[in-house]
């Protein structure tokens, strides 16, 4: 029998859409997981990642619908296409999980992160830090004579770039929220 003869019955969910398991390219995906806001739900999701050896690059969680007891967990993860598919299937079968959206493949999406960046310095370095923060449209949320705390929102790459620039200028501390993401349009 010729495997290609299967095409007749093939649909949009056809075998031909499946990814090749031998494909070992690492991909980064952003997943939005809608869960019941019940006790232990975050531990459950994190436990799945650690227990099965999946990566978590970034994680955010907060209640998004108080009356419906729903929270949204946004995870950025890296793995081969087959592993990403497994992660989604494993999340999807958890009892408190309502929906798993792979924002990376489900059309355009917006990803934002907030960072608080503390920089210590005086003189030229201090001036330069302030100048760069202006370019990045960061705001100063705390200031002493020898330090600033900048608040910056944007895509994770923008925050990475800002932190890299601040490093030689006296960077002493960074707090990042992790990624929040949502699809574009309706």
């Amino acid at each position: 029998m010729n495997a290609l003869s299967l095409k007749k019955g093939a649909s949009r969910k056809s075998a031909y859409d499946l990814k090749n398991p031998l494909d070992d390219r690492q991909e980064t995906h952003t997943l939005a997981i809608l869960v019941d806001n019940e006790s232990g739900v975050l531990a459950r999701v994190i436990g799945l990642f650690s227990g099965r050896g999946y990566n978590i690059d970034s994680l955010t969680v907060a209640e998004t619908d108080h009356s419906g007891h729903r929270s949204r967990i946004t995870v950025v993860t890296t793995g081969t296409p087959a592993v990403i598919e497994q992660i989604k299937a494993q999340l999807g079968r958890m009892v408190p999980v309502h929906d798993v959206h792979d924002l990376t493949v489900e059309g355009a999406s917006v990803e934002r992160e907030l960072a608080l960046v503390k920089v210590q310095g005086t003189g030229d370095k201090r001036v330069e830090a302030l100048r760069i923060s202006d370019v990045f449209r960061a705001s100063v949320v705390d200031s002493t004579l020898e330090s600033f705390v900048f608040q910056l929102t944007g895509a994770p790459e923008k925050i990475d770039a800002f932190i890299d620039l601040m490093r030689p200028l006296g960077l002493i501390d960074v707090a990042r929220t992790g990624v929040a993401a949502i699809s574009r349009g309706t």
Partner: protein
Amino acid sequence: MTRQMTGAKMVIQALKDQGVDTVFGYPGGAVLPIYDEIFKQNDIRHILVRHEQGATHAAEGYARSTGKPGVVLVTSGPGATNAVTGMTDALMDSIPMIVLTGQVPTFMIGNDAFQEADTVGITRPCTKHNWLVKDTDMLADTIHQAFHVATNGRPGPVLIDIPKDVQFATGTYVPPKEARVSHYAPQTEGDADMILAAVEAIEEAERPIFYTGGGVINSGPEASAVLRRFVGESGFPITSTLMGLGAYPASGEAWLGMLGMHGTYEANWAMHDCDLMLCIGARFDDRITGRTDAFSPGSVKVHVDIDPSSINKNIHVNIPIIGDVGAVLQAMYDLWVKRGRKTASEGVKAWWTQIESWKAVKSLNYTNSTETIKPQYALERLEALTKGRDRYVTTEVGQHQMWAAQFLGFEDPHRWMTSGGLGTMGYGLPASIGVQIAHPDALVINVAGEASWLMNMQEMGTAAQYRLPVKQFILNNERLGMVRQWQELLHGERYSQSWSEALPDFVKLAEAFGAKGILCSDPADLDDAIMEMLNHDGPVLFDCLVEKHENCFPMIPSGKAHNEMLLGDASTADAIDSGGAVLV
């Protein structure tokens, strides 16, 4: 009926409303209110085990042999931790089970109170879901949801942790019909396009094979019935995993025997050479696939499974169908019939000729002896002497388990209870107790190894207390046989710690428990001894002294492909290379 009642009473009421007739458990401080309610009623029977692990395996045996969920009740702390192995076992083997644990009162949680353990934390990875109930008004609702989750989709164990103050407090009882509807509703009907693709593949396949598993048993008797019809009318060969034995009868014409690491030559070769693999409720476990990159290289693979995470987990398949085995198989069968029951019959005929040549290898052959009892022979005699009886078999874990799978024939589903995924030594005796409780008049046999049997031997007391006529058939090789076999093949016959030293006198041990003990070491006496066991109306401990260094064949060594299987001792030299040695 008043809706107001204590949490403890609610537990009993909810179990009754869920149709529970039996609970396996062990009391302690944190569940005393519930035990008090058990004392006051007669609808639910409580079976007092001797160790909480025993309760879990008994519940598994009960569940697997009835299709209903098994129910366990244990106390907080050590009661809960002792139940962890059984829950993990049930999770791996997809067994529906409800575990109720007591917990310290809510106001003491987190204080390292007496017998406090973070039970929901400990059991999160070994349950399908678990709940800590902090409010009596939520208790009934949670119990009903727990039954829903345990029995729907891919079945599994769930746990409800109930603090003692929640048991004492009064709240409002909610019957099952009024409970909150859980959103948890896995897909049961298969996708029509995929079913069509599968049927087209069936019509064209020249070298097809059904590879069925535990999911057929989980799905229920209708699934087995349609499977039998489909296999019979298509004329396709069928093999099954360890977990799926009995879904198709061992006496059936199309039966190739079990596949996998210790499966038959014909089953594994047919899997390797097929052009169409119909995987029905099985999960491409590593005991089945061997080396995954050499697994059935030329086949189109159809996979029917209710759990999307089983699809493409280990093996990439061409036609995935997510749904319940019973529903999907019925839809596939109906469509195939509607389209005229077509098969590539010439090709399939040639395929059978090929399969017959593999069968002719007689891979289960062994060298018998007149001096010592060969374990395979003991099982052949047990099979012959129990044939046609209403028989249920449980096993422990090891060589004896594999021989039981190879040499006993299962004609119906729900008759074979074994720990497959976790491979838990100590499973068989308590499981046999659970089966016997569910089927009081049936013949229940636990095929055991002496080492495994000792792991939960305290449950012999449970068998004696409830006068359960379970037959403990121990193939005693005085070795941790399966470990010894691997050491022989992989570790230069250095038998490190794989001896069963200082074994008890099993006959005396039986008598100490108030059971009957039988010792047999001569093949000539075996039939009479087995008959004596079968004819005794009560629990029996049968100490069958067998050949000590028998190996279990066929065997696909770890890291090898299906067509590299070992058939007997002659072929074992250097069978496993260093790459395979790191695998288990």
